[in-house]
C-alpha cells in the first residue's frame, strides 16, 4: 500500500503521452528532452488545477469530482475551459476551430430536422426537486422507517448468529458509536470484547413490541391471509421491503410456521399458498437475516413441498403449483443460508432423495421431492435423483399399468413426468450423446428409459416441437395468484357444529394438546372476538399445536379454522367483510403500551411547532 501511495504521490504524465498529444495537434518530432520537460510541467499545472477543482468539489459538498469542477477551476485560473467535455456521448474526437484570437475545441453536433422534433411527443420533464420530511430520530432513538437505514445490517445479524457474545456489542453499536455497516471495525471490537470476558452470560433478550409494531403485525398478518388480494399484495410488499422488521421477525416466522402446521391438517390449500407467499416476501427482504429462524421456516416450507395431501380434492386442485413454489423457496433458503455449520442443503437433499427412493410414500410427495431436488440445481439432480430414476420408474409403471385405477395417482404420475422433463434434460446431456440407443436408456433407467430417451433426443435435436412438449417443458413459473381463490379459502368443512355461536373458548378447551409446548409460557386468551354479526370470520388459533396431531384426522369440534358468522359457511363468494384472524402467543405485547403512549404525549409539545412541508412527492425514494 505504501508503494501504491508513493507512486501516486510522485506521478508524472509519461513523456510518450506528451508526444502523442503533441502529434495530435500537429507538432511532430518532439524531442525526448522537450517532452519530458513538458510532461513534468504539464503534470505540475494539472495538479494545481485539480487542487483548485478539489476545493470546488468540497464546497459543492459532493463526494465526487466532476468535469464542471475542473472547468470552473480553469476559469478561476483565467484559462479558457475545455468546452464540451461534459457532453456524455462521445466527446472524442474534438473538433478544433480558431478565429478572433480564440481557439476552441468542441464536439460535433448533429443537424436536427425541426419537423421531426416538432412532430415527436415532448420528452418527459425531469422530476423537480422536492422536500421530504421524516423522523430521523425521536427522543434519541431512531425509528425503523423505510427512510432510515436498517437498525441492524444483514451482515451484523449474520455475525450475531455466529457469535452469541456479540449481542451486547451490537446493542452498543446500535446506540450509534459505530456505523452498523462498518462490520470490519465492529468485528475487531467484538473480538477484543470476547477475549476480555470469556464467561459472560448472554442477556435475556426481552422482546417488546411497541404499539405501532403490534398494530403493524396485526394488519400484516390479517392482510396476508385475508381475502383482499390488493391488501395482500401491499402487505407482502411491505414485508419484502420494510427495513425495520428485525424486531418482529420471530413473530412473523412463528405465524407462518404455525399456520402451515394447522392448515396442512386442514388441507387448506389457499391459506398454505398465502403463507408461502409471506415466507417468500420475508426471504426477499434484503435487510433481514433469517438464519436464526430456519428451524421454524424450513419444516414449514418443506411440508408444503412433500406433504402427502395439501388440498381437499387432490384430483382437481392445483396443489402442484404450491409444491413448485415451495420447492423454489427451499432452494432459495439453501442458496442463502446453507453453510458448513448448519449444512442445510445436504440435509434437505438427503430428505428429498429418500422420498424418491421410498416406495411407500405418496406420489404427490415424490413429486414434491422431485421439484425440490430439481430446484437445487443440476449437480444435485445428477447425484441425488438420477441414480434412483429406476425406482421412480417402477413406481410409475405400477401406477400406469396397475389394475387399481386410481385417478389421483394417474394425475400425479403425469405431473411427475412433466417435472422430469423440466429438470432432467440438461443433466442427461452431460451423460449421454446422441449415438446411444433406446436400449441403453432402458438399461439405465428401466421403465422410464424410452420416455427419457425421446425427451433426450428432442433436446438433442433442438426440436422446438410446437405446443406439446415444449409448452410443458417450460411450465410458467406461477406466481401463485390463484384464480380459484375465493372458492379455495373456505374448504367445505364438515359443517361446524355450531355455526352461529362464535365461542372462542370452546376450541381452547377442546384441545388438550395445547399444553404440550411449554415454551409458550403465557397463554393469552384471545381478546374480545372482533366478530361483528353479519361478517364472516376465520379464526385460526395457532397455539403450540404439536405436529403429532397432524396424523390423526382432525375432529370437527376442535378445528382451528372456524367460520364465524350467521351466514352459510359455503357462501364465501359473497365475501362481505371476511376476516381471518390468527391469534398467536402475543405475550408482552401490551406491556409497553402505557409507556409508549405517555412518551407520545410528552413528545407532542415538541413536535407541534413543526409541520412537514406539503409538497411531499417525487420519484426518487429513499
Amino acid at each position, binding site marked *: 500500500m505504501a508503494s501504491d*501511495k*508513493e507512486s501516486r*504521490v*510522485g506521478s*508524472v504524465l509519461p513523456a510518450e503521452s506528451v508526444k502523442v498529444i503533441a502529434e495530435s495537434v500537429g507538432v511532430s518530432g518532439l524531442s*525526448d*528532452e522537450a517532452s519530458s520537460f513538458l510532461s*513534468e*510541467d504539464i*503534470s*505540475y499545472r494539472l*495538479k*494545481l488545477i485539480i487542487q483548485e477543482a478539489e*476545493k*470546488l468539489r*468540497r*464546497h*459543492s*459538498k*459532493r*463526494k465526487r469530482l*466532476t468535469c*464542471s469542477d475542473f472547468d*470552473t477551476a480553469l476559469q478561476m*485560473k483565467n484559462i479558457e475551459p475545455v468546452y464540451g467535455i461534459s457532453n456524455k456521448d462521445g466527446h472524442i474526437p474534438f473538433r478544433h476551430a480558431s478565429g478572433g484570437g480564440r481557439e476552441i475545441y468542441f464536439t460535433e453536433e448533429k443537424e436536427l430536422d425541426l419537423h421531426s422534433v416538432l412532430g415527436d411527443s415532448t420528452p418527459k420533464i*425531469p*422530476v423537480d*426537486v*422536492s*422536500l*421530504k*420530511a*421524516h*423522523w*430521523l*430520530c425521536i*427522543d*434519541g432513538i*431512531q425509528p425503523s422507517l423505510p*427512510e*432510515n*437505514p436498517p437498525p441492524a445490517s444483514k451482515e451484523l445479524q449474520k455475525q450475531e448468529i455466529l457469535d452469541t457474545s456479540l449481542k451486547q456489542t451490537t446493542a452498543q453499536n446500535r446506540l*450509534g*458509536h*459505530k*456505523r*452498523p455497516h462498518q462490520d470490519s471495525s465492529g468485528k475487531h471490537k467484538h473480538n477484543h470484547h470476547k477475549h476480555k470476558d470469556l464467561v459472560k452470560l448472554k442477556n435475556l433478550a426481552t422482546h417488546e413490541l411497541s404499539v405501532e409494531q403490534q398494530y403493524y403485525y396485526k394488519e400484516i398478518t390479517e392482510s396476508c391471509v385475508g381475502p383482499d388480494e390488493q391488501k395482500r399484495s401491499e402487505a407482502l410488499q411491505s414485508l419484502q421491503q420494510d427495513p425495520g422488521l428485525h424486531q418482529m421477525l420471530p413473530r412473523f416466522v412463528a405465524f407462518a410456521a404455525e399456520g402451515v402446521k394447522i392448515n396442512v391438517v386442514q388441507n387448506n390449500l389457499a391459506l398454505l399458498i398465502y403463507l408461502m407467499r409471506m415466507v417468500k416476501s420475508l426471504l426477499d427482504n434484503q435487510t433481514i437475516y433469517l438464519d436464526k429462524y430456519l428451524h421454524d421456516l424450513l419444516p414449514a416450507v418443506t411440508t408444503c413441498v412433500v406433504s402427502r395431501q395439501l388440498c381437499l380434492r387432490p384430483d382437481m386442485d392445483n396443489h402442484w403449483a404450491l409444491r413448485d413454489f415451495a420447492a423454489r423457496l427451499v432452494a432459495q433458503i439453501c442458496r442463502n443460508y446453507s453453510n458448513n455449520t448448519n449444512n442445510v442443503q445436504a440435509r434437505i437433499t438427503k430428505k428429498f432423495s429418500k422420498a424418491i427412493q421410498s416406495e411407500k410414500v405418496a406420489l404427490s410427495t415424490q413429486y414434491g421431492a422431485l421439484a425440490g431436488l430439481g430446484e437445487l440445481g443440476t449437480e444435485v439432480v445428477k447425484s441425488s435423483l438420477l441414480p434412483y430414476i429406476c425406482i421412480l420408474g417402477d413406481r410409475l409403471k405400477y401406477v400406469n399399468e396397475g389394475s387399481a385405477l386410481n385417478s389421483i395417482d394417474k394425475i400425479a404420475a403425469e405431473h411427475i413426468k412433466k417435472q422430469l422433463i423440466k429438470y432432467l434434460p440438461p443433466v442427461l446431456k452431460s451423460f449421454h450423446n446422441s449415438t446411444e440407443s433406446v436400449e441403453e436408456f432402458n438399461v439405465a433407467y428401466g421403465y422410464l428409459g424410452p420416455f427419457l430417451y425421446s425427451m433426450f433426443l428432442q433436446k438433442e435435436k433442438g426440436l422446438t416441437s410446437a405446443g406439446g412438449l415444449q409448452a410443458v417443458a417450460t411450465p410458467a413459473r406461477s406466481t401463485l395468484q390463484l384464480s380459484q381463490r375465493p372458492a379455495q379459502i373456505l374448504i367445505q368443512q364438515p359443517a361446524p357444529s355450531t355455526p352461529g355461536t362464535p365461542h372462542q373458548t370452546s376450541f381452547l378447551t377442546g384441545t388438550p394438546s395445547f399444553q404440550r409446548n411449554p415454551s409458550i409460557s403465557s397463554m393469552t386468551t384471545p381478546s374480545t372476538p372482533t366478530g361483528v354479526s353479519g361478517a364472516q370470520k376465520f379464526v385460526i388459533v395457532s397455539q403450540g399445536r404439536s405436529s403429532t396431531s397432524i396424523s390423526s384426522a382432525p375432529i370437527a369440534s376442535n378445528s382451528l379454522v372456524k367460520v364465524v358468522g350467521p351466514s352459510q359457511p359455503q357462501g364465501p363468494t359473497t365475501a362481505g367483510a371476511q376476516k381471518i384472524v390468527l391469534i398467536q402467543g402475543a405475550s408482552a405485547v401490551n406491556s409497553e403500551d402505557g409507556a409508549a403512549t405517555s412518551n407520545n404525549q410528552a413528545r407532542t409539545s*415538541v*413536535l407541534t*411547532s*413543526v*409541520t*412537514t*412541508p406539503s*409538497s411531499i412527492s*417525487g*420519484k*426518487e*425514494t*429513499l
Partner: protein
Amino acid sequence: MATTSEDPVESVKKEPGSCQYDKQTLVAVLQFLRKHNLKGTESLLKEEAKVSEDDLKTEEDKKTEVSQALAAVYKSDDDPSLFEDLYQDLKTFIDSCLDVHKVELSTILYPVFVHMYLELVYNGHQWNASQFYSRFWQDQDEHRHEDLARLTSVRQKEHMVGSDNQLLESFKTSKFILRMSRDSYTHLKRHLQEKRLSSLLTIVQDHLFIDVFDGVPRTQQQIQASGGGLTGEVDRDANKAKVLYGLLREPDVQIALDDDEEGGDGDEKPKKKKSKKDPLLMKKSKNDPNAPAPTRIPLPELKDQDHRDRALGFREAKKRVKLDHNHLPSICFYTFVNSFHGVTCVDVSDDSSLMAAGFSDGNLRVWSLTPQKLRSMKGVDDLDIIDKEADDVMERIFDDRTATDFKSLSGHKGAVYSASISPDRAYLLSASEDGTVRLWSLQIWSNLVCYKGHNFPVWDVRFSPHGYYFASASHDRTARVWATDHHQPVRIFAGHLSDVDCCRFHPNSNYVATGSSDNSVRLWDMLNGSCVRVMTGHKSAVHCLEFSPDGKFLASGGADSQVLIWDLATGTMVAQLLAHTSTVYDLCFSREGTMLASGGLDDSIRVWDMQKIMAEQDTEADPSIPSNITINDSASLLLGSYFTKNTTVLGLHFTRRNLLLACGPFVAPS
C-alpha cells in the same frame, strides 16, 4: 572549418580535468554551426566528438539555469548529497534524546524536510530531491501527506517562481512556527552548534520560528492536537488580545411578553420556575464584565416587528425541551429528493419557518416549513389602496393569489455556495461561484443588491445576528464584512494563507470567526479589523464554525472530520470530538448550549455533550504555557449517532423548542 575546431577538441578531451571547459566550447561551436545551418559539418563534428543529443541538452539547460539564477531564499552551494545525511543525522539525534523532549523536537522534522526538499529543487538537484523525498516522506505525520503530495508536484525551479502555488508561497514568505519548552530548545541548539551543522542551522534560522516557553515539555497528544496549521502553530502573542465574548444586553421585551400571556395561573407557575433555571431566558440585568459596550459597534435599531419576534421567541423558548445526556433530541430530517447532486447549501431561518437552499445551477429556492405559504407583496397600485393605519397592515400587503409552498430565485451565473436568511426573515443573502453576493427580498421575491468585491468564488456568507451586517468568505483569501446599504465592504480581513472557507458572526456581532484551507481558525474584531485569535489544530480545511449561544466557545468542523471546541477567552482548544468519518459540513448548538450537533458527508448526525465539556474544562490552568492545557477527547462525549440513508447532512438547526432539524440531499447510490 570543421577540422580546425576538431583538433583542439580531441586533444583536450584526454585530460579529464578540463572536461567541463571542453564541453562548453564544443556546445558553443555546435550552436554556431546550427545557427548557420551547416548541418553536414555539425553531424560530422558530433559524431567525431562522440557527443550525444542528450548530453547537449542537459548542458544547455544547465547553462540557461545558471544564467537565470535569481537571488532567492533557497539558493545555496551545499552538496546536494549531504542533505540526506543531514536529515538522517537530525533524526538520529532526536531519537537519542530523552523521551520528554523527543516529541517536541520531532515537530521540527516536518519543516526541515520541506525546506530541504525545496532547497534541493531550487538548486536544480532534481534527482537528489526525489531521492530525498522518497526516502523520508513516510516519516511525516499522516495529516501532512496531502500537503506533501502537493509539494512533490514541484519538481523544477520554474515551478517555484510565481505565486500560483499557495503552499509554496506560504512556505517561502512566512516562517514555520513551532513551540517548544526551553529545555528542548537548548538541547537542539547545542546539538546544532556542536556539530557545526551550518546548513541545518541556516534552515532553522531562516525558515523556522521557535517560540520558547518556560515549563514542562508538552505531551504527544497536546502537540498533535494543536499542530496541523499550514505554517505550524501559533506564537504566544497572537492570542494575547482580550476578547469581549459576553452577550449584549437583550432589549426589554417584558411588556410584550405579559400582553401575550395566554394561559391562566396554572401555566404561569412552571414557566417562572423554568425561566430561573435557564440562564439564557433570564434578563441580563447586570452587565456582563466580558460583554462589549452595546455601542461598540453601531447596531440597527429594533423595529416593532423585531420586538414582536423576540417576544414570540421567548414564549416559544419557555416551551423548550431541556436537553442533556438523559434527554436526547428528536431529529426531523428534510431530504431533498431528485436533486441530482445539485443542492450545495441550506439555511433555516431562526424561527424555523423558512428554509433556503442553494443549487449548483445558480438558483435558490425558499421553502416554507409551516402551513403558512409564501406570498409576495402586492403591486404598487394595490399597495396604494391599503389603509396604512390598519393593525394588520403587514398582513394586507401580501397577495394571497401568489401563495405557494416554495419560491425560486434566479440570478447567479455560477453555483451558489452559501445562503443566509436575515434574522427578520425579510432578506436572503447568497454567495456564488461568480464572485458576487446577492441580497434578495423575501417579500417581493427578487434581487435587490449585487455586492461585487470578491474576484473569486465566494464560499460563505452569513448575516449578523442583529441583521444589517453580513460577512463573506472567499477564495481570494479574504473575509469581508459588509453593511447591507453599502455596495463596498466595510471591513476586509486579510491574513489567512489560503481560501477562507467559512465565516460566522459572534452572537454579540462584535467579532467574526473565519475558517480557512490553511487549517486555521481566526477571530477578527469588527471594531478595528484586527485578528485577535488564531487557532490551529485542524489538519485540513475548516468547513463550518458555530458560536455557542453564550458566546464563550467556538466550535469548528472540517475536512479532517474532526470537530474542535475552542475557548475564546484564551484561544485554546477545549475539546476534540472524533467520530465522523468524513468532512463535517455543519454544526449547531442546542438553544441553551448544552448540546452540539454535527453532520456531514459521512451521512450521519452526531450529538455531543457540551455540558460535560464545560464541566470538565480546566479553568485554572495558565493558558500561556501550552503544556498545561488539557484537551478533552473522551469518547463519552458522543451522545448519539444517527445515520441517514445516503443523505449528506448539509444543514442543522435547533428550533426554539430544541427540536433538531436537519437537511440534505439524497444521493442515489451509483
